[in-house]
């Protein structure tokens, strides 16, 4: 791990670029799939790139204040940071990122960084819909955090470590070594939690376009929005990489990474396409009930 700092930064930038492109493409692909399911042709999968370039290009910009201005920065810094603390590909120097900074606990808590910053920015925008969106988002987050945390605890019990790289190493050798197979209950609970994290249906009330037009980001536009859209790609991908590492044996090369993250993403997409939307209190109750019980069961089995 004695890579010189400059080189380390360079590697991280490369890693970041790859994940950004992949994350954004994933978004495009999903939109395509949605369209197809709904019987439309849909936009091309590179549509997100076009959107971002377009929004960056917008010259008019207003600000409601300093936190409003910093909100998107927080948001994307959170996304990038999260990704940078995860070792993306096992054994790869380029894709090991800054994972020496901390273990899975760091990643779990760094996820909040962007959300908090975003919430603050949205708060200063002064739009009631933003506040409502944040209230919903945070509330829902507390709920899906529970099964997620519990399944991570289950993993820690299983592997006796919080170190992501070690967890991935432990899953090497055979597909049957994956947490998915060695600890299916924890995986299921975590995947249900992922539905909430991704805020697809049925847990999309935070951004619910029909009720509170796009929720927290309502007031953001131009470069602010572009930053957020970029983040959406990176952050999504970062979460998927984390899941891949924890539950699906990690990746030893870029192709494994792409295939695995795509597959994991598809789960929430499929669920999202086929379900209507929950109200916040319903989703809270749901998360605290089904997946939490599953995760608890996973822990109990491991402890026994």
């Amino acid at each position, binding site marked *: 791990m004695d890579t010189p700092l400059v080189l380390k930064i360079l590697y991280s930038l490369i890693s970041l670029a790859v994940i950004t492109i992949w994350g954004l493409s994933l978004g495009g692909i999903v939109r395509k799939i949605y369209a197809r399911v709904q019987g439309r042709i849909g936009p091309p999968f590179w549509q997100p790139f076009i959107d971002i370039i377009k929004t960056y290009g917008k010259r008019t910009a207003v600000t409601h204040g300093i936190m409003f201005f910093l909100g998107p920065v927080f948001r994307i810094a959170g996304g990038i940071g999260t990704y940078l603390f995860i070792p993306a590909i096992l054994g790869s120097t380029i894709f090991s990122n800054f994972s020496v900074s901390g273990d899975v606990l760091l990643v779990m808590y760094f996820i909040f960084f962007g959300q908090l910053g975003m919430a603050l920015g949205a708060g200063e925008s002064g739009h009631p819909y933003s506040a409502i969106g944040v209230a919903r988002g945070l509330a829902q987050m507390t709920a899906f955090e529970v099964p997620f945390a519990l399944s991570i605890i289950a993993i820690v019990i299983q592997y006796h470590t919080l170190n992501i790289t070690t967890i991935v190493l432990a899953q090497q050798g055979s597909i049957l070594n994956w947490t998915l197979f060695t600890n299916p209950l924890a995986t299921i609970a975590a995947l249900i939690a992922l539905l909430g994290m991704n805020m697809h249906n049925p847990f999309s009330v935070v951004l619910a376009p029909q009720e509170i037009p796009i929720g927290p980001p309502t007031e953001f536009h131009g470069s602010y929005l572009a*930053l957020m859209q970029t983040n959406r790609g990176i952050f999504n991908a970062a979460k998927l990489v984390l899941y891949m590492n924890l539950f699906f044996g990690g990746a030893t090369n870029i192709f494994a990474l792409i295939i695995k993250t795509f597959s994991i993403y598809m789960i929430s997409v499929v669920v999202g396409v086929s379900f209507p939307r929950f109200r916040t209190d319903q989703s809270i109750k749901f998360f605290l009930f089904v997946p939490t019980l599953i995760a608890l069961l996973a822990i109990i089995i491991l402890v026994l």
Partner: protein
Amino acid sequence: MVNPIMIFILFLGTAFLFALFDKIHRKFSFAILQLVLLINTFIAGQWLYKFVFTSQTPVMIFTAGFKPPFSINLRMGLEEAFILFAVNFVGLLSALYLSKSFKHSKVYPLVLYLMMIMGVNGIVMTRDLFNLFVFLEISSISTYALIALKENEQRLASGFKYMIASGLASVFFLLGTIFIYHITGTLNIDQIITHKSFVITSLGFLSVFTLMMSLIIELKPFPANGWALDVYQTTTSGVVSIIAVANSAGVFYAFYKLLPLIPHNQLLFIAGIGIVSFLFSNLIAIKQTDSRRLLGYSSIAQIGLLITVTALTRYLHVKSSTSLFIISSIFLSNFIAKAGLFWIAGIIKKTHIKEWAILRFKPGLLIIFGVFIFALVGIPPFPNFWAKWDLIRFLALSKLHIWIILILLGSLLEAFYLFRWFGSIVRSEQNEEQLLQPAYKTVPIIIFFLLLIIISIGIPIHIYQFDILPLLPIVGLLILSIFDFLPSKLKAIISMIIIAGYTLYIYPVLSGVSLVFAFIFLAGSFIQLIATMSRKGTDKGFFPLLVGMILSMGSLLVARSSLEFFFAWELMTITAYMLVLRGRKAEKPALLFILFSLAGAYLLLSGLSYAHVINFSLVGLGTIPISAHMLPITAFILIVVAFLIKVGAVGFHIWLPGSYAEAEDDTTSFMSSILSKTGIFGMLILLLFLLKMNMHHSALFTSMLGWIGIFTVFFGSLMAIFQEDVKYLLAYSSMGQLGYIVLCMAAMSHLGWVSGLYLAVNHLFFKAMILLAVAGVISRVGTRNMYEMGGLIKKMPYSFISVLIGIIALSGVPPLSGFGAKWLIYTALLEKGWYFRAGLSFFASAIAFLYLFRLIHTIFLGQPKPQHQNVKEASPFFLIPQFLFIFAIMAISMFPNLIIKPLSTFINPYFASTIQWQGNTLYSSLGYWNGNLVMYVTMGVFMLLLIWLIISIGRVQKVKQFNIVFAAERPFKPTTTHFAHNFYAHYKRALGTFVRPVTTGFWNGVGEWISSAAGSIRQIYSGNGQTYVLYILLYFIVLYFIMGGK
């Protein structure tokens, strides 16, 4: 030495000549009266001095040149001298107090007054049973007559009831006397006592029973005491203070004198009589609104306690010097305080306790009133405190558990109504009224006040050999009281100097973990004192109390014995109570605070008494070898509950939100960020004992403690999110954060304790910051309801920054210091194998986000209120400490080693370390964390993106907050556009069931039950004199059979 007979000669001689003196002038006869009492006080005082300071042995004075039984003899010993001194002194002062009444009365009240005091003198000294009867009658008859000194109908009615009740009692006394004489052939008390074996015969028992019972009836036991209450309620202040203290003292001493007659196995019944009286009088007093009757109940209760204690110490064969100390301390507390309070009642001249609120405008009198109340309750350093300490210790040693419970329960009830009264006076809204404070009435009160203070300071120094160290809090309080006239800013500086000096003074004693707590208690206070400079004017009373509180927390650290620890603990409690009470609407919360704190203190007291170690303190811990069974399970549980109450653990938390919220805003910051940690400090000592003792089941205990901790976290956080009042929100948040610390400490591992202490320090930083920022905001906007604020970021950017840093640090989001706490906690919990607790704390920490966002959003973000148009940034005095704390947080965020390394070193002596360092990376057995690098990465990414945004966005146009996209329309007005009220309605729909006020309901239920019990029990006092006579009779008969009479 003056022969005590002189006392009688003086009394009688002058009494008969009074008619003559009065012919000259009333002033002359009054002067003679004073002179007689003064000389007698002096005589008694001289004897007392001899007994205390020289090896004078008790003397017997024989009259008529014969030895008993052929003559009456008197005894002058330590006890006699003590009581006589007190009685004659109070007689002297009360005479002064009554001077105006005496001036306008006929001459005979003066004579009666002298006779009454002489009667008491006789009761105390005589060793002859029949002579005792005569003196009892003399003092009673003069009392009967004096009750009608300024006659009115109620006084007459109560006097009549008193006469028939007390007359009946004395008839019984006479009967008992004659039967004893018949059996033993002597009236000499000492001879009777030497032949006391006759008691085993049934006639012997009956006679002793009759004799003792009549004395007990005169001591007004529940329920045969309705008549006495009426007298207390109606009689004029000067007289009632004499009845309540001097007469009772005499009768009590007669009881004390004759108690050896009671066979050993019957002593517990006598104690039972006392405790019933103590408990029920205190219980009924809860319903009482008439001030004098309330004092009457309290007097009766105290006498009941005295009976109990006397009987119990004799039962236990407690060393006579110790039992004498306990009894005389309780006696003196009641004696001085009750006389003083009755005197104050005569100045106030209001019956209803609420009307006493006018005291508020007489600070001097109010302080004296408060001191008397504290003395009754047994707050240190007043005598009752020491008595309580020794008493409970002996009871615990002798395993008289039930008595401990009953005594402490009764004390708590008494504390309840006394503090309720005190609180209602301090916080009432009554208007000022003219209050006459004539010197002749004020001087006695002040003299007794000073006497109390002198005794209170004398006891710790002379009897417990306290050096100056544990008394420093009081010294600090007094110093600041002297400077109380100075402006606040100056006083804050003086306070800071005192605290700095104190820190330097105790620094050599500190080491290891006590350094951490010293940092929290003293350095934390020092910095927060800056904020108090924002107080306007002189703001009297605040700084003395604050310094007292801070120094008593320091005292906790350097206490060398259980007693010093408990002393500091109680001092801290009472000063904190007074600080809470300063809040404008703090009457109820402060009462709840002191009740729970006292309950905790009593648990601590009994726990410490059950412990087989007298060194329950961090310093003391190092000086003794710890062995198994030093802390029995009972002691452990009692002490741990005491500390759990202090930290506001779930189930005991109901005192917490109210008192944090309603205290003054800067006080809240002290309480939440500093004071609450004292519970943690205590728990740390306890756990250290546990650790070294190898106690049975200790794993089970710590596991339970862990669950209590995590549930405190969970419920505290959950309740916080539903609060509209910002201070309630933060109060619940504190509860939650302290729950984490408890959880960590309970883990009993190196990492657990490191994380607990880390969190304790971190909590000091961020909670003080947030609370001070909020205090600044409240000081500007004048409301605590968050939905009435909004958009303040532009008006108060600095406050916003510190709240922002505070909530990031609290929530545990990297890269700030809060994440360090989270990392340590989870690693510790997972290492320990506490998986479910870890899971629940993840949930709780996510919930914390909800209230934190609500906090910052509804205050600083969103739409500003039009009425806050011209709000300015908070005072720099609030901001300076906040920024110091920000600096501290930033420092430990960048360089976590700054704090974790020393903490780890401090814990090393107790647990083997499980963490190691490699450069800046911290390795646990499970994971690793490099706070330094995280900070750099985050800052790097953040700066890069910020620059990118600035470049890409170009010129931005600032728009007004209200300029928002709103379906192409403008919303109605900013006020309604600020989404703030009932912010988490959906959350309540989902999880509202968890925050139903179950605990509050439970405690309310307890309160209501007690109150209604009091309401129905007091119905026995029908007001009919005949009923009271019947009670006396029934009391007699029932007890006769209970005590095994045949």
